[in-house]
């Protein structure tokens, strides 16, 4: 099928094209407590085509894309490509070129790709081995394992194949006592099952659950320092990554400049885009447009070094060697845990909704079981929310030296933001 589509593209009126075939085989298991709710399997092939048309003497270029079903006939596929070429001619963006081969051939890492059965077995046994108690137990879980075969080609001669496993685990954990029952939710993406990390995560969430059962109403603090120690830190990392993206810069959403210190030198965060992170579900040889991914410093000690993004936005900024990042490392902290956790603070953990908007800087959320650390006492609290703006909060942001990993992001274990707004009820 792929060769057929490639031939049709070459014979079409497209000035350039990209072609991506992804064959995914997946197994899924759904559990209520430890009983099987449903099992599912899939084998699906997706063929995505993007065609480009240049106009105005190569001053402008436009693209249009479509998925061509593997069941499409030659006539149907040819017609779809003809329609795409027509659509692309109506789209006029400043001219840019597609990625071209560079730096020698790319090949998948050596080693056997796990089969679905062994990938699934690891998760099934890990879930079975979760240590449950009378007062904290698994309510339900969903296991997804996939093997993805990706083949990317473009009209400039890039031809890359890659095979990667990836997986998702959704866990709902309940805790109960005489006063009632609560639940906590976690969704974990990874390359393959990391049993030890999974067990540690479940033990942590069960501890949060037990603590939340004895939670007191959140005090009306108005303002407080907040220490983040769970996956909310991903959102903070995403705020910096968003403002260092080429698309934000081109659109005028980010006023950060290369070489100009953030927050008048008060910000000391570093951010890198990484080709690989151990067991990340985002590891890949190239990005979705065939650009080679390589380790790149985006922020160094609070000073922008490189915007990154897709070919179109990167061309708008005149960037060389740019790509769409998949993995990030956020670092730059100098504090140890004792320093981060000094004095009074609210410890935000497992918020059900927490967002950091890279455009406005707004940050906020709630719904989790935070801990109020006050005068040496630690009290689990509930019923409140926190909010603030990263553009000001980042100036007093403290981070631990030690890093931890959430799938495709390596981030400080703890981050402290000073003076966030806190809505309480008591």
């Amino acid at each position: 099928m792929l060769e057929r589509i490639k031939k049709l593209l070459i014979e079409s009126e497209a000035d350039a094209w990209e072609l991506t075939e992804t064959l995914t085989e997946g197994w899924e298991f759904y559990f209520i407590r430890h009983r099987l709710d449903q099992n599912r399997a899939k084998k699906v092939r997706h063929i995505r085509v993007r065609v480009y048309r240049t106009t105005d003497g190569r001053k402008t270029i436009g693209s249009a894309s479509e998925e061509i079903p593997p069941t499409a006939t030659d006539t149907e596929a040819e017609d779809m490509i003809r329609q795409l070429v027509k659509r692309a001619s109506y789209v006029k963006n400043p001219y840019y070129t597609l990625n071209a081969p560079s730096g020698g051939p790319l090949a998948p890492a050596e080693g056997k790709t796990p089969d679905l059965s062994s990938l699934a077995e690891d998760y099934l046994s890990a879930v079975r081995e979760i240590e449950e108690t009378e007062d904290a137990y698994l309510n339900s879980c969903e296991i997804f394992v996939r093997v993805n075969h990706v083949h990317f080609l473009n009209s400039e001669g890039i031809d890359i194949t890659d095979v990667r496993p990836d997986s998702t685990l959704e866990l709902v954990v309940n805790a109960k006592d005489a006063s009632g029952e609560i639940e906590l939710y976690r969704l974990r993406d990874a390359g393959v099952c990391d049993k030890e990390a999974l067990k540690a995560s479940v033990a942590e969430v069960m501890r949060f659950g037990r603590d939340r059962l004895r939670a007191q109403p959140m005090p009306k603090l108005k303002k407080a320092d907040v220490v983040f120690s769970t996956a909310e830190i991903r959102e903070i990392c995403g705020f910096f990554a968003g403002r260092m993206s080429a698309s934000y810069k081109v659109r005028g959403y980010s006023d950060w400049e290369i070489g100009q210190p953030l927050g008048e030198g008060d910000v000391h965060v570093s951010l890198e885009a990484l080709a690989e992170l151990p067991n990340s579900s985002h590891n890949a040889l190239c990005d979705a447009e065939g650009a080679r991914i390589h380790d790149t410093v985006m922020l160094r000690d609070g000073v922008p070094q490189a915007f990154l993004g897709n070919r179109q936005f990167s061309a708008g900024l005149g960037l060389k060697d740019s790509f769409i990042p998949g993995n990030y490392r956020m670092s730059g902290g100098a504090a140890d845990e004792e320093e981060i956790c000094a004095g009074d603070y609210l410890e935000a953990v497992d918020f059900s909704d927490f967002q950091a908007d890279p455009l406005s800087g707004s940050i906020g959320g709630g719904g989790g079981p935070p801990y109020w650390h006050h005068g040496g006492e630690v009290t689990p609290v509930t019923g409140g929310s926190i909010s603030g703006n990263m553009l000001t909060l980042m100036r007093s942001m403290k981070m631990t030296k030690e890093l931890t990993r959430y799938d495709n992001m390596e981030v400080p274990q703890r981050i402290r933001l000073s003076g966030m707004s806190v809505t309480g009820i008591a």
Partner: protein
Amino acid sequence: MKAPFSPYLNEIRDPLKKLIDILSGTYAYVSVLSTDSRGFAIRVSQHVRTVEGRTMTTERGTVVRVYRDGLYSEYAFNELDPERISEKAEEIRTALDAQLKLLAQTGTAVYETPPLPDEPLTLLSEMETGSLPEDADFDALIADLAGVSDAACAAGPDVIECQVAAQSTHICKMFFTKQRDLRQSYVYSEAVLAAVAVKDGRSEMAHEGVSGRIGPELFFELSGKVAETVQAAEEMLTAERVEPGEYDIITSPEVTGLIAHEAFGHGVEMDMFVKGRALGADYIGRRVGSDLVTMHEGALCAENVTSYAFDDEGTPAGDVTEIDRGILKTGICDAISAARLGVQPTGNGKRENFEHKVYTRMTNTLFDSGTSSLEEMIASVSHGFLLKGMQSGMEDPKHWGIQCMIERGYEIRDGKLTGRVMAPILMTGYVPDLLGSVSMVSADRQVFGNGGCGKGHKEWVKVADGGPVLKAKARLG
């Protein structure tokens, strides 16, 4: 015109019926859902334009559901040779048997479920639309949407960018069992403009949208939203942060819809009852809101982006009264959960696409109208906020916590708008307290179908929600 049913799906009808016949030799129940939904998305801004042949709901593929020994299993695929149906049946059996072998090795017990009823039903529904996405004039549409972006940038002194996103999808689905033969075809469209204003190092975005079960002709309504969107973006540039606390609130219809969705939308999805994850199961027949609160849910409640004829399990669309004058009456239910709970399914079994599992999901979730006016509500508030623009929300069915991120709030003091704007606003509360505090409801009502809804943090589907203007009390921060 009527949205014509997919010729491709008609071509594979008989082969798929043969597949059911073959698999019925092994399994006690077999159903097939096949989809062929095509559409497009156009994005236009001052800096970039794109045309994609993909929306949230475009797909072509098939999922087979089988039942044996109390267990439901599914296999999804998108390669089908009508001449080799026996091989496809064998592929399905082999894959599912391999899973069962592994499950047997790990000593996994099954959550035993009764077989689904299979009552005879035949349907071909080709719904009305003004036009089809496959016939769209892209040159004209791109020009019109670019005009919307240009108009927004010209309308506000601080507006630096306006992204316009418009998409239209022609949904075609067919569902078979031994007894059922259902086909449906409809078109829905939606468009959003998002104006970005920047001043003195501050950036804010405001957005407005349109949606409906019609074709791309809907996009031309977007120009009527430019002035309101630009004004909101400009206002947000000087917005303050709200002093955390409890206030009287007046919710515009889109915020009302967000509350409907998060409060007793997710809270009465009955697959959560099966897992013991929803407090609502214990509150059927009990008071959960004031007398002014009546809420409906169902694909038949409105004509919007998810107003289908039957759901992804072949259950006809419904209209469920979830809350009647403050009393929780019932929830919504997919077919398997209904079999487990001993109730009737409500036509709310939905998949993200053919590759995904069915869950109980919302369609149109709406508060009923009342008799008050917005002016009366504002006049009745001593200190509070008129809330406009929804950003996101999160439910907590187990504890009835609700959390809504709202774009902006307009201060009201002594019965009058003061001109002060707060943004953004995080509204939190306990669902029965929030609904119990509803003291005024407006006579009009609107429905909004932009965006999507996840189950947990995945499984994204189209939903619509809305209602009238409400007056209530909530915590804001």
